[in-house]
């Protein structure tokens, strides 16, 4: 009975978490347009430009999902209808979604090919391109390139011994990234290492790496003195950006088509790079820069209301203080995510661990299975949830993923804790005439409580950490400022998420430690180590 009551509370909590993370749909379902973006400056800026344009010229309420990770996440969100549109690149459509192995050299052919195929296969529409191509390119510092006399990618091979390559993880993986590049230029001898793109420029500036991958419209190109290497074998496919919209959405809101077309060819390379620079280097908000652009283009009425955010150039303490309300809200989201996930995990894993002590043969396979879940990289596990019906983007997926992560320590410790109870005591209890249920409740569980609690603490601390990645699938939490900060190379913003997250982990662990002292029977010797094993 009490278990059911607890389950009801957790489900209510879960429902609450979902409700707060994704606001309830307005009375008329056609009234909302969800605009997504990948987790990097340009994509978010384009998303914000489209969002403000739609807000200014239609009655639709726009919901922004600006931190949707990489292509896989945002594209499955679009296909499942979690979002209505996002800015995509033709080269990505060609190689990632359509899986073409052969190269396409002409930008126009690439655009027509993806436009046709996407409409045919998925009822997704490529609207008019924004006018710039943000292709991959390789960059070196001016001085280093000068010293080695490198201007073209084909020259890299001659310096394979002396060059250190630092490439983003996505670039290392993608067929139109390093794997293809290596074959096209025969770069066998080079051994690139993976790094977060937001950190690559700094690594380049400090001379830790010599060559990085970047985009032709990257705002940072304006600040660092970099040399873009010529793609003399014409390997990199064209990367023209355009809004990618669900056909369904366009049919439901016909006014969107002419409206979004007004953005067509309004952003040549240099313009896009300048806008990126405003956000990344001048620390202005996405909303500000998007609004300024739309005003200059005459697409926005100067008297329209603004949502200007405060300038971002301030000291860390001032930043933390100015974000205190926002931080509290994020802490709340973070706690709701981890609280729901760990509570569910306790409800499932403790009984499961107990069953395993009664069915020894299942113990290996079941604990093994939960261990396998833990080996899946967190981001991948989060991404797996999106296409699952009923999960999609947001809190539910995040809770399910965190829940799966939280299982192992609790199952394993429950099993080990109960198994570790002195068999003589169990036999004494049975011999006295305790029923199986009484043996479990009065002897085995109290004696295993310390070990079980150690598992719960481990799970909670892991969950608080992994939950910072939940922002990638739109579940909010303290990961939001961390991800945005990484993109913008804004240490203050990163810390405004990371510090509370770390503090939260420490405090929660201490709190559970206190709870453990209350739960562990007085007669047992005080524990020797303070933390979970």
């Amino acid at each position, binding site marked *: 009975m009490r278990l059911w009551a607890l389950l009801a509370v957790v489900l209510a909590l879960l429902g609450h978490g979902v409700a707060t993370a994704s606001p309830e749909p307005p009375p008329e379902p056609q009234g909302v347009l969800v605009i997504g973006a990948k987790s990097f400056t340009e994509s978010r800026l384009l998303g914000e430009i489209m969002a403000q344009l739609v807000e200014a010229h239609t009655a639709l309420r726009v919901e922004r999902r600006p931190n949707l990770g990489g292509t896989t996440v945002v594209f499955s969100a679009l296909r499942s209808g979690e979002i209505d549109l996002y800015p995509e690149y033709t080269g990505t459509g060609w190689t990632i979604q359509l899986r073409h192995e052969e190269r396409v050299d002409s930008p126009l052919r690439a655009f027509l090919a993806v436009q046709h195929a996407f409409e045919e296969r998925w009822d997704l529409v490529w609207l008019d391109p924004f006018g710039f191509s943000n292709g991959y390119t390789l960059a070196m510092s001016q001085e280093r390139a000068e010293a080695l006399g490198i201007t073209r990618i084909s020259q890299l091979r001659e310096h394979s011994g002396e060059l250190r390559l630092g490439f983003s993880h996505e670039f290392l993986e993608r067929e139109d990234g390093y794997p293809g590049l290596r074959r096209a230029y025969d770069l066998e001898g080079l051994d690139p290492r993976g790094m977060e793109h937001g950190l690559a420029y700094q690594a380049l500036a400090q001379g830790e790496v010599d060559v990085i991958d970047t985009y032709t419209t990257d705002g940072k190109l304006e600040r660092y003195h970099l040399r873009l290497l010529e793609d003399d074998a014409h390997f990199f496919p064209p990367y023209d950006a355009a809004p990618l919209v669900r056909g369904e959405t366009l049919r439901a809101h016909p006014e969107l088509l002419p409206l979004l077309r007004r953005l067509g060819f309004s952003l040549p390379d240099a313009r896009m790079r300048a806008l990126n620079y405003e956000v990344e280097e001048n620390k202005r908000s996405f909303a500000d820069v998007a609004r300024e652009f739309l005003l200059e283009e005459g697409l926005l009425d100067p008297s329209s209301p603004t949502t200007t955010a405060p300038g971002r150039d301030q000291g860390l303490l001032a930043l933390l203080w100015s974000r205190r309300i926002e931080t509290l809200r994020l802490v709340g989201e973070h706690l709701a995510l981890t609280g729901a996930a760990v509570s569910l995990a306790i409800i499932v894993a403790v009984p499961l661990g107990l069953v395993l002590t009664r069915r020894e043969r299942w113990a290996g396979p079941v604990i093994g299975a939960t261990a396998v879940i833990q080996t899946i990289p967190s981001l991948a596990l989060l991404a797996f949830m999106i296409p699952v019906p009923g999960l999609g983007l947001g809190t539910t997926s995040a809770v399910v993923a965190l829940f799966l992560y939280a299982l192992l320590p609790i199952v394993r410790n429950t099993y080990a804790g109960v198994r570790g109870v002195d068999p*003589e005591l169990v036999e004494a209890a049975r*011999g006295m*005439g305790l029923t199986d249920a009484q043996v479990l409740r009065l002897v085995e569980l109290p004696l295993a409580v310390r070990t079980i609690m150690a598992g719960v603490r481990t799970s909670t601390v892991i969950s608080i950490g992994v939950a910072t990645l939940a922002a990638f699938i739109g579940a909010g939490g303290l990961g939001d400022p961390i991800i945005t900060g990484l993109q913008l190379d804004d240490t203050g913003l990163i810390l405004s998420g990371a510090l509370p997250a770390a503090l939260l982990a420490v405090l929660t662990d201490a709190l559970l430690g206190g709870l453990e002292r209350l739960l562990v029977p007085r*007669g047992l010797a005080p524990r020797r180590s303070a933390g979970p094993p």
Partner: protein
Amino acid sequence: MIGAAPSPPSHDVTATAPTPMIELRGVRKEFPGPTGTPVVAVDGVSLRVAAGELLCLIGTSGCGKTTTMKMINRLVEPSDGEIRVDGRDIRERDPTVLRRGIGYVIQKGGLFPHLSVAGNVGLLCRLEGWERARIEARVAELLQLVNLAQELATRYPRELSGGQRQRVGVARALALDPPLVLMDEPFGALDPITRRQLHAELRQLQDRVGKTIVLVTHDLGEAFALGDRVALMDRGRIVQLGTEADFRERPATPFVEEFVREHVRGSGA
């Protein structure tokens, strides 16, 4: 020396007597062995224990004493044979109900470390749904019975000496006033002085409460000191069942004669 009930004249199980408290007939127990061939732990044991009698099971380690005892409270199910407690076949009884009527004491007491002395002693009363005041009174009564100070009620097992723990174990076994008590090497872990003291106390207790007791030991001096009768086991069988005088004057086999000579001298009794 001899308890309230008269001891049966001999180990002849076919002899007619008032309904014995415990009766084993041709009881056998095989465990699956590591190589596939079964291990015979108990090999055709028949015996009767009269109400109020204290019977000691003795023998070398591994001869089947514990297994024999655990079959009486159904912690182990026999492979063959029949066991009756108070005239009723135990296979027909619910194990939990059966066990609540049989006290059980094991080596080192088997106390639950997370429960206080009072918690351990009163556990079964609690499970039987007794009121708080009645449980407290019963715990006090039992502590007095086993010569323990009342202040110990709130202590935890790790705060007790070995002898105190053993007394708590006995008190716990007597909580529901069972007519029958099984004790598996209850004094095995104690120093000789404490052990002898507890022997005397157990005899007094036995005189007062008149329980039927089966006590397993590997110490022949202890068996002679405590038992109305002694059953010597070897390789799963009872080789002799009788009084101290029977063992000394009429050893059934050379093995018994040897065992008595070795062990009585060895234990210094």
